[in-house]
């Protein structure tokens, strides 16, 4: 599904503040699995997700998504891959303030030019499946942390991507809500999605719902577990 070959990412290369975020990564990620990248802050988890999700380009190495090499793609091709293949869930939710939950969910689909009626039906269906439809007309800034993360997950799913990329999705949530979010991600895996999660939360990487745990430290893979 996703393969990384000798991937490195260096920020501020050649300067005094050069930072090697990930180095020489060789990794294969299976389709239809819930994989967690575990590691302390600064271990390269977020950078790795950004590279896999085509939000950043590596400094060297190649990444293959569904057999297609994506690191060399010109930006407009990369945008299409990012839009159709990946759905993103962020630590800080990144919902657009002042806009209601339904509009937030529909935003990533706007560039595709779908009929609004169809889009609204699909977005409401996603909110329904995540048990948050009753908050569809609520502004994003009025939502609780748990509600906001559910809306963010619905937004990640609106283009029906094959891969869900979640960066510390439980960082701002209490234990009960964190378990619910993890359950939602596992449910997506059960529906055939590939779910990639970066987390240093033991509740996530020690959960039996997780298929694979990849340990990271100092930008390198440290160890693996299932």
């Amino acid at each position: 599904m996703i393969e990384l070959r000798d991937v490195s990412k260096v920020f501020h290369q050649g300067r005094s503040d050069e930072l090697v975020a990930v180095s020489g990564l060789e990794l294969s990620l299976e389709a239809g699995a819930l994989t967690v990248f575990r590691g302390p802050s600064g271990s390269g988890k977020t950078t790795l997700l950004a590279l896999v999700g085509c939000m950043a380009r590596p400094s060297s190495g190649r990444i293959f998504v569904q057999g297609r090499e994506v690191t060399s793609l010109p930006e407009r091709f990369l945008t299409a891959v990012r839009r159709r293949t990946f759905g993103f869930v962020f630590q800080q939710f990144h919902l657009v303030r002042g806009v209601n939950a339904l509009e937030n969910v529909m935003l990533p689909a706007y560039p595709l030019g779908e009929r609004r009626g169809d889009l609204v039906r699909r977005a409401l269906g996603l909110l329904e499946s995540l048990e948050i439809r009753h908050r569809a007309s609520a502004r994003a800034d009025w939502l609780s942390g748990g509600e906001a993360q559910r809306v963010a997950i619905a937004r990640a799913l609106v283009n029906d991507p094959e891969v869900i990329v979640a960066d510390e999705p439980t960082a701002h949530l209490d234990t009960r809500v964190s378990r619910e979010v993890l359950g939602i991600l596992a449910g997506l895996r059960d529906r055939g999605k590939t779910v990639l999660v970066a987390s240093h939360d033991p509740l996530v990487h020690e959960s039996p719902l997780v298929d694979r745990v990849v340990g990271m430290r100092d930008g390198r893979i440290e160890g693996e577990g299932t």
Partner: protein
Amino acid sequence: MILHPGVLALVLSSLLVSGMVLFASWQGLRVLRAWDLASGSARQLDLERRTYLVSTLLAAALGIELVSLFLYVFTADAVAPLLTGAMCAAGTLRATAFGTPVLLLKLVNFLLAGVWLVVNHADGLGHDYPLVRKKYALLLPLAPLVVLEAGGQLAHFAEIRPDVITSCCGSLFASGGDGLGADLAALPPGPSSVAFFVAVSAVFAVGAVFHATGRGGVPFALAAGLALPVALAGIVSFVSPYLYEMPTHHCPFCLLQREYGYVGYPLYATLLGGAVAGMGVGAIAPARRIESLAVAVPVLQRRLASASMLLYAIFTMIVTWRLDASALRS
């Protein structure tokens, strides 16, 4: 130097374009030497990022290069009243030894830059930089010409002296005189008008075949490219006298003036645009065999061919209209 806004714009833009083209050529040499899409090395990834940026910037710079041809003749026409003896752009261009060569150089660079922009656009339609080596190889001969043009243009404007008498277009394009302008003016109107309409008709005929069969991109490019010098010669030899309604006046520059409704601008813009679009059809024809462009290039070729035929049609309509409306016919 005459500090006309057009002169300043031309000098500054030519320096900018020259700098961009030189930088892009240096980048192009790196691409030609080291490009290897199969490699994931830091150098290759750096080249990929840079070539995308450089192509975008260079497309803007060469867009300026296209416009500069028209600004050059507009400026030459605008400063003509300041020069003793000059009646139009022809006198300004004749005021120094650099003026006319720079115009010819600009014409060549216009065509090369236009074709480069077409190739660059085609390259952007493929996901694997399919024409990256070819477009940088094409840039290498263009770079010295652009720099030469910038230098010549600067020398031309620097050397112009308002108090030195220059020639007027009446003597430069007199059928009994010397030089290219006089030779063109001396062409017999009958055969040159036949050549003119045959050349333009060939563009439509070959273009129709290309549209019907999807084949013949290179012959269409040749027809569109050859029609340009034939049409330019025709403008001097037989179109101009009808347009000015003076049998002895063959100047190709006076028609850029207000007295003639600035008809020269749409005339030359459609002619040059038609030639570039047509030549672009041939320039990207080999790319049809590249897997990542096999679908996109034929579509682009059809659009370019349509644009070329439309522009040549407008050009021919303007010429025919002015010939038909001329008092010289009666």
